[in-house]
């Protein structure tokens, strides 16, 4: 009960600055310091947000975006994790050759590659999935390899000297040691994928949150624009919090995770 009260107090204290900011925003627009056509009042933005939610269009587009992200993200985990494992454990020789190439791919500006993806995949769901896959792939592979690199060989030797079979070795020693590193990669990739899909939908699409945003800006529906911005930000925060919670759940045995969180 006491912990709940403390959490409530922290939440209240934290939201104080946001609430003050909202009041400041409202005051600035109402008094006319900033023209209402350029920056609408928070109340109008809230009204626009509710209208969009109630009409169903917002949720429909969100579902579309989230579907595309999920498919792309799952695809990239399905490829990146095994590849990372293989490179990290058995094919270390390939690591030296593959790493610079993969590092280059990671640093490549995804925005510059959008037209290339659009050439190959059009502007439909397939292209979105491809973009998300590309963007999520590289951090995942690197973090998997890093996670494997951090395995303590003494643990493996100890397990083997106690008679562990290869399967036991994999599931009880190697996998738990690498999960922290992998999860860092997963968290980073998730945020990056969300960011990229919104951008990709703004540049070339006919559905999804980014497209809704762009079309509302084309219609000069400024309150709806702001409403979507806030909605997307809240989604991003939710994804962040979700993955941090997941990370904490999985990384119970890793001390450094507590320290960074």
């Amino acid at each position, binding site marked *: 009960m006491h912990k709940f009260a403390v959490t409530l107090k922290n939440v209240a*204290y*934290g*939201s*104080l*600055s*946001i609430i003050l*900011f909202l009041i400041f925003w409202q005051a600035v627009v109402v008094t006319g310091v900033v023209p209402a056509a*350029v*920056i609408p009042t928070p109340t109008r933005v809230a009204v626009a947000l509710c209208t969009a939610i109630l009409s169903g269009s917002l949720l429909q587009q969100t579902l579309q975006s989230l579907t595309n992200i999920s498919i792309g993200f799952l695809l990239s985990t399905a490829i990146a994790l095994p590849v990372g494992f293989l490179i990290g454990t058995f094919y270390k020789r390939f690591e*030296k*050759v*593959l*790493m*610079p*190439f993969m590092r*280059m791919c990671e*640093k*490549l*500006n*995804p*925005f*510059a*590659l*959008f*037209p*290339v993806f*659009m*050439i*190959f995949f059009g502007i439909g769901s397939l292209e979105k999935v491809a973009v998300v896959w590309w963007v999520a792939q590289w951090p995942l592979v690197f973090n998997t390899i890093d996670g494997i690199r951090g395995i303590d060989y003494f643990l493996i030797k100890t397990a083997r000297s106690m008679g562990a079979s290869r399967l036991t070795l994999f599931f009880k020693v190697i996998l738990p040691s690498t999960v922290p590193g992998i999860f860092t990669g997963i968290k980073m990739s998730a945020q990056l994928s969300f*960011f990229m899909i*919104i*951008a990709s939908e*703004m*540049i070339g699409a006919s559905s999804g949150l980014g497209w809704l*945003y*762009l079309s509302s*800006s084309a219609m000069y529906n*400024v309150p709806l*624009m*702001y409403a*979507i*911005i806030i909605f*997307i*930000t809240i989604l*991003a*925060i939710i994804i*962040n919090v979700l993955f941090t919670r997941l990370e904490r759940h999985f990384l119970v045995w890793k001390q*450094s995770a507590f320290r960074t969180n």
Partner: protein
Amino acid sequence: MKNFLTALNDQASAFYLIILLFILWEIAPRVGWVNPNFLPPFSQVIAAAGQLTIYQIILDTAVSLKRILIGFSAAILIAVPLGFILAGAMPKVSRFLNSLMMFLAQIPPFILFPVFVVVFGVGEGGIYTVILWSAVWPILFTTMTGVGQIDPLLIKCARSMGADTIDIFLKVVIPGAFPSIMTGLRSGMTMCFMMLIGAETLGADSGLGWLISNAQKMGLVPRIYLAALLVAVVGLAINYLFEWLENEIIIWKEQAPEL
């Protein structure tokens, strides 16, 4: 002799795959593995540079670099002092503002671009603001973290040896926070370079991002690849520059003891 060749091989092995890929890029469309309309051969992409004129390429690259330079420098000038003040002199204020800053920092900068265009005008205003916004947050947060993780013992030592506040700031706080700030600078630069290209794609009439989107609209496929390649090269160059700077300047950083 053998040692020399082995060392050379070690160094060059990083590039084998890349060279192989370029060779593949040249061969695959010609042989017909890939539709040459979708993926023109590498030589054709380079030839498009001649058609585009080197002058135009240099102009666009220069415009993009100018935007990033000005935007990024402005971000440093705003974020670093602000970070020092907030973390050092006003910790209570910074804790109060923390949730608001976290919320604002989470807004994808790309989303804000149309808003910035509406507020600051089409063209340069919106682009500079996006670059500024996307670079300020990482730099601000890492500066605050950097100041926060300075060993208070060092400050006490300096004070007990009679250093005044300015000395402590210049000789303890700045070097102590610098590695963290450098990390922030690097990630800020990555963010704002990404945003630059994105913003130029959406609403500009010069620069590398505009080059890509213009080529796409005109359907000049080789030029699209050329521009993408240019962006990649510039991005890599900036990245290596920052890594080099980090290694050169931070000579006092102790290696963290292995945990």
